[in-house]
């Protein structure tokens, strides 16, 4: 049986780790390479770097961060943010990432998913989604860090990206992100039953039990959190111990 994965996410700007609450009030917390190494020691199953740098220089810094991390962290690394072209995907994988995560760019240019999967394989194309509830069991997809509503139905979108060859979905709920009241279970359930590729729960973890709850209540394959781990309120091994005590298979 595959183990459920616990994934710490590092939001990185200009080579430094930051974490915004509801995408605002960004606060620096440290060196990404060191943070990734610590998560690795805590038993993280995968590490996600989310690059929130806009500039070209920042992009190069991000690839250096990936290169340095890949020298001392031996679990899969995913890099998201600012990936616009197949060349960007290639550069990121060559720097040492195992997967890339595409979000806004995939919404604006869905062909990026197919082109990336055709060249590098589905397993390295993760599609990140920011979505927000508009009615019961109905959500729309946002871009630009949750700022622009594209009016696209979430369920239509996830089916489309699966067909285009995405290997995984990282599903972030704008409604629960930063609120710390637990993952968005209705949204997760709806997406997990619409597709047959792994879904990572993101946005909303506020306490230990939130992780196990997502695994018990939905078919998600992994759960991701940023600030909770950054600010050392919880460690990855604490989360895993809680899951284990509830008979969830974790590494």
């Amino acid at each position: 049986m595959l183990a459920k994965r616990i994934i710490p996410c590092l939001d990185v700007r200009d080579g430094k780790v930051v974490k915004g609450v509801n995408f605002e009030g960004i606060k620096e917390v440290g060196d990404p390479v060191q943070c990734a190494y610590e998560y690795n020691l805590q038993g993280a199953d995968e590490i996600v770097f989310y690059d929130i740098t806009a500039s070209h220089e920042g992009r190069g810094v991000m690839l250096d961060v990936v290169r340095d991390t890949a020298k001392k962290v031996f679990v899969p690394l995913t890099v998201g943010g600012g990936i616009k072209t197949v060349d960007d995907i290639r550069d990121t994988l060559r720097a040492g990432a195992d997967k890339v995560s595409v979000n806004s760019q995939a919404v604006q240019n869905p062909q990026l998913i197919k082109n990336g999967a055709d060249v590098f394989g589905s397993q390295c194309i993760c599609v990140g989604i920011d979505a927000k509830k508009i009615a019961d069991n109905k959500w729309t997809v946002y871009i630009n860090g949750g700022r622009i509503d594209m009016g696209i139905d979430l369920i239509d979108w996830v089916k489309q990206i699966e067909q285009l060859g995405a290997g995984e979905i990282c599903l972030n709920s704008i409604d629960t992100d930063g609120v710390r009241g637990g993952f968005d279970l209705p949204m997760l359930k709806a997406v997990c039953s619409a597709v047959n590729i792994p879904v990572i729960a993101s946005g909303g973890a506020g306490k230990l039990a939130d992780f196990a709850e997502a695994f018990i209540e939905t078919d998600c394959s992994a759960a991701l959190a940023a600030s909770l781990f950054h600010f050392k309120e919880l460690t990855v091994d604490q989360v895993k111990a809680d899951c284990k005590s509830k008979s969830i298979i974790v590494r």
Partner: protein
Amino acid sequence: MIAIVDYGAGNIFSVKNALDYLGFENKLTNKTQDLIDADAIILPGVGAFPWAMEKLNESGLVDTIKDQSKRKPFLGICLGMQLLFEKSYEFEECDGLGLLKGKVDKIDEPDLVIPHMGWNKLEFTQNCPLFEGLSDDEYVYFVHSYKAFCDDENLYAYCDYGHRVTALVSDGKYIYGAQFHPEKSGQTGLKILENFAKLTVKEGE
């Protein structure tokens, strides 16, 4: 020196990073002489079987690989493990290196997500020097859509994903193959790579 065969397949840098981290001298190479001079050889690989076999044939290293795998520790990783077998049916029937008896075919699990991607538990079937120091509760990282079908005598570990998925194979002498990525499997993977690298030290003594 451990030679990492560079024939154009991906993920060679992570294997190199892991060996560097562990402090074992290594070299990415596509040269015959390096494989002959090496104390051990690692054959990595990500991608499709026919494509990789074509690249290996173009590299002119096939005969050297076949010969050297009988003389020194040899580890195939992921697709590099699959290439050890006689045949694959990925897209089309394709001959492999034929160093181990068996074939490679699709993971046929209609109810499960394919590729088999993530951390799965090793179930050991035989003792193996690569398992030294491991507990019976070890998870390693897999990413693949095809799996090897081999004789029980060559199977050393499997994992459960619907049915058994071949995880680690060996000829009981020099040849080893890991379907998972030891270079991405945390402490467990590093331990397996270290155990492999240490075989070369023993051979050299």
